[in-house]
């Protein structure tokens, strides 16, 4: 193990992440900031709403994922599941929120189809005070992410074979497919899904853009209150926002800690039940097909609606199609920001994967939890806070307004995602393959390049695609760190979305979805095991 192998990751990623946080701490610990935060009339209901949305969406997404995986494992649609999940993953959260919102809102497609009448019904769908619409949308949007993470394990070269053999063995012992899944596939699956699930929870509890479109306003989610406070021109409000960031982060850590404790307690009784002999439990195939089809239909409808919206300056209730269509929104696109974004995001994703592999190859697995915790921190903190701290660090160093500063700022969330997504599959790799190669006196580097990495192709490519998708959606760094000097695709999209023109927002959301879509499809296609 070479200790130096950790240096690049620490220097390029951990340092630009931690140093700014340390710089923000004094402001977040300021007494006046806390007094303002605790006196804010929306603080506690907003916190409850955020944690609720995070929890409900995570449990919903997990239930959907497990049902789909259990019901469809080794069925005929299994192979296409990966491509479908990848396409779903590519849809930006904001794009899905707009499309989904237009399905369920009072003047939306469902009401037009099934209610009609002169004026829209007075439904309480989007912006419901309990955040249920937001939670449902989050669960549906995170389903492809969890599916991808699960599939990364189940289609990984070494593990897939092993699991298949184990399933066959279980079947010969009298286990029905459902029983075999529960006892053979589920335990390693849940282990691999642990970090992705944490991400989903943290994301749901801290998301801003989806909460702005679908969430309530009185009170809004705490992340939205924080976002407004950090955006304020008054430094006292910024301080209050930072105090709230600290509070939300602590609350998330508390919830995760309690859940971890409960799960540890529940493990033994659960294990006893799962260890019991074979059962005739069948795979929930019918339910999986039903839920899968419904989820797919909603995703497709949301995207179809988005396409129509991008061509419709006006689409009044109760018309089933817009009265006029034009391409005005699409005419606002220019190519230059796309090239900036593509170059930047490809570089960031490739660097992140390289840094992660270097870390996993040179560091003991025991150190991963440290890196994962850091990664989670990078994802949990609102970007206005973490990038704001980074800005304060970069300013005296002369890195603001430079490409390198922008690249470093992109690397922060990208490497975080890549590390978390990759940790499970990479560490679970069966070391005997490399050992066998080494026994044939293959050099360490060659064993890595010709044996291990090819076998890990699927998770590596998925991680790279996720990193790319994360990077291409970044808005804050280009605005803050680069002082708007480099016009990226989301810069154009987000600033225009601020004006609330729905056709423009839809068109740019679709444009933002396209590069990741291609990346995920490429990853799914290239990542397939060669023997199939």
């Amino acid at each position, binding site marked *: 193990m070479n200790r130096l192998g950790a240096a690049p990751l620490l220097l390029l990623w951990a340092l630009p992440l931690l140093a700014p946080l340390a710089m923000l701490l004094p402001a977040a610990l300021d007494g006046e900031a806390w007094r303002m935060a605790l006196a804010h009339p929306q603080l506690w209901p*907003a916190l409850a709403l955020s944690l609720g949305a995070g929890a409900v969406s995570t449990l919903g997404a997990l239930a959907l994922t497990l049902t789909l995986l259990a019901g469809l494992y080794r069925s005929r649609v299994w192979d296409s599941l990966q491509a479908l999940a990848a396409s779903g993953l590519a849809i930006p959260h904001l794009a899905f929120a707009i499309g989904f919102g237009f399905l369920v809102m009072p003047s939306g497609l469902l009401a037009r189809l099934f209610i009609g009448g002169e004026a829209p019904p007075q439904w309480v769908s989007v912006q419901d*005070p309990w955040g249920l619409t937001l939670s449902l949308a989050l669960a549906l949007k995170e389903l492809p992410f969890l599916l991808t993470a699960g599939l990364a394990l189940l289609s990984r070269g070494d593990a897939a074979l092993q699991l298949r053999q184990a399933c066959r063995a279980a079947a010969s012992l009298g286990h029905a497919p459902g029983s075999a899944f529960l006892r053979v596939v589920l335990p390693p699956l849940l282990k691999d899904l642990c970090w992705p699930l944490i991400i989903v929870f943290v994301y749901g509890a801290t998301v801003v853009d989806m909460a702005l479109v679908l969430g309530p306003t009185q009170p809004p989610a705490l992340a939205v209150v924080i976002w407004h406070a950090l955006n304020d021109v008054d430094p006292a409000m910024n301080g209050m926002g930072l105090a709230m960031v600290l509070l939300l982060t602590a609350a998330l850590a508390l919830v995760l800690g309690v859940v971890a404790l409960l799960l540890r307690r529940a493990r033994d009784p659960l294990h006893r039940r799962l260890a019991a002999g074979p059962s005739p439990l069948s795979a929930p195939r019918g339910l999986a097909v039903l839920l899968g089809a419904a989820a797919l239909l909603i995703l497709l409808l949301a995207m179809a609606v988005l396409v129509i919206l991008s061509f419709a300056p006006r689409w*009044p209730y109760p018309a089933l199609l817009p009265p006029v269509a034009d391409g005005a929104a699409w005419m606002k696109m220019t190519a230059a920001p796309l090239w900036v974004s593509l170059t930047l995001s490809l570089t960031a994703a490739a660097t992140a994967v390289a840094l992660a592999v270097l870390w996993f190859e040179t560091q003991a697995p025991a150190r991963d939890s440290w890196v994962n915790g850091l990664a989670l921190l990078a994802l949990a903190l609102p970007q206005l806070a973490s990038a704001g701290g980074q800005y304060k660090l970069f300013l005296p160093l002369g890195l603001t307004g430079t490409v390198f500063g922008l690249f470093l700022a992109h690397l922060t969330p990208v490497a975080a995602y890549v590390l978390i997504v990759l940790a499970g599959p990479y560490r679970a790799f069966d070391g005997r393959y490399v050992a066998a190669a080494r026994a044939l006196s293959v050099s360490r580097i060659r064993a890595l390049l010709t044996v291990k990495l090819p076998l890990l192709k699927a998770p590596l490519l998925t991680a790279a695609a996720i990193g790319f998708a994360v990077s291409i959606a970044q808005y804050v760094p280009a605005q803050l760190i680069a002082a708007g000097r480099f016009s990226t695709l989301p810069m154009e999209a987000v*600033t225009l979305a*601020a004006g609330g*023109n729905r056709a423009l927002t839809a068109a740019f959301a679709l444009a933002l979805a396209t590069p990741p879509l291609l990346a995920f499809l490429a990853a799914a296609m290239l990542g397939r095991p060669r023997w199939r």
Partner: protein
Amino acid sequence: MPLTLTRRGFASLVALTPFLSTAHAEESWAGIEKQAKGQTVYFNAWAGSPQVNDYIAWAAGELNARHGITLEHVKLTDTAEAVRRVRDEVKAGKDGSAGLIWINGQNFHVMKEEQLLFGPFAWDLPNFALVDTDGKPTTLVDFAEGTEGLESPWGMAQLTFFADGAKLPAPPMSMMELLDLARDEPGRIAYPAPPDFHGATFVKQALAETIADRALLPLAIDKDDFREATQPLFAFLDQLHPYLWREGKQFPLTQAQVTQMLSDGELLMGLTFNPNEAANLVSSGTLPATTIAWQNRGGTIGNTHFVAIPVNAKAKAAAQVVANFLLSPEAQARKADLKVWGDPTVLDMDRLTPGQRALFTGGDAPGAVKDPARTIPEPHGSWVPLIEAAWLERYGA
């Protein structure tokens, strides 16, 4: 004290104080223009409207052709982004990343108070002589705060309502009439939740229409006086809210959302700060041709938006040339054109030559305001945080 006196006072102050008279201020305008040649101005401006972005792109082309200046539009979602950036840069002793900022209200107050602005420069711009400072006093007073020449007026704004005339032939011309309409059509009226700018303005408008003594509004106010003065306001809002969208328990987030909900048919009315926005939305197809726009009978809250130069801007000469160009009759007329942007001019038509006047081809377009009402100036800045806090306290959760 008349504002013109203050202005002259400041001009002499500039001449006498070596601290204020930077190298640029002493030079003639021709010198500034010469110096500006070849400079790049990073114009930090809200970019939520393609019409505005296109207009800035047009100005960039003209400035390049006429003055050899490169104007780069740094697109913002919120002007506070630029203010915070300038503050941090100044603190760190760094050159400015912003050359010119589109600004007014609280952002201006903060920058002025923290001495983050270059100038005074605005009153020395050649085209400033054409500004209608008498008819449009808000060109000199930004939310009850004197501009002192630290920002140059760019366009006019006044709270305006709009609706589909086919669905709402007799629009409410006052807050009381609005209450009647909401009673008749429960759930079809909404305003954005403060601190959204338009939501706060709606509440300020209600304040101006319900307050016993309107003379209090331009003055600073403390908490106790505020409570007493706003009793009628909150009594009115308490009456109104049960008839609003979602019974006043949820509010739209932004003015844009209200406009979208109007366009979709979910709401009956929209609101805007640009009197010509409705006409502009008709021409872009977002609203139907039957759209009408109006201002409340007794007048509505109005203000001016400006451009200002940060104290650490690198290309101050070019920034002044840009500000002067934006004030030119040609640029102002193009900006006021409903098909381009529809932002009302700050200039005084009487001070223009007939040829310059002819550039302003404004006329009757569908969605334009038929009977403009008088402008009620923004209340003093001290009212705003109190209004926002009281509103949040009552209706926020």
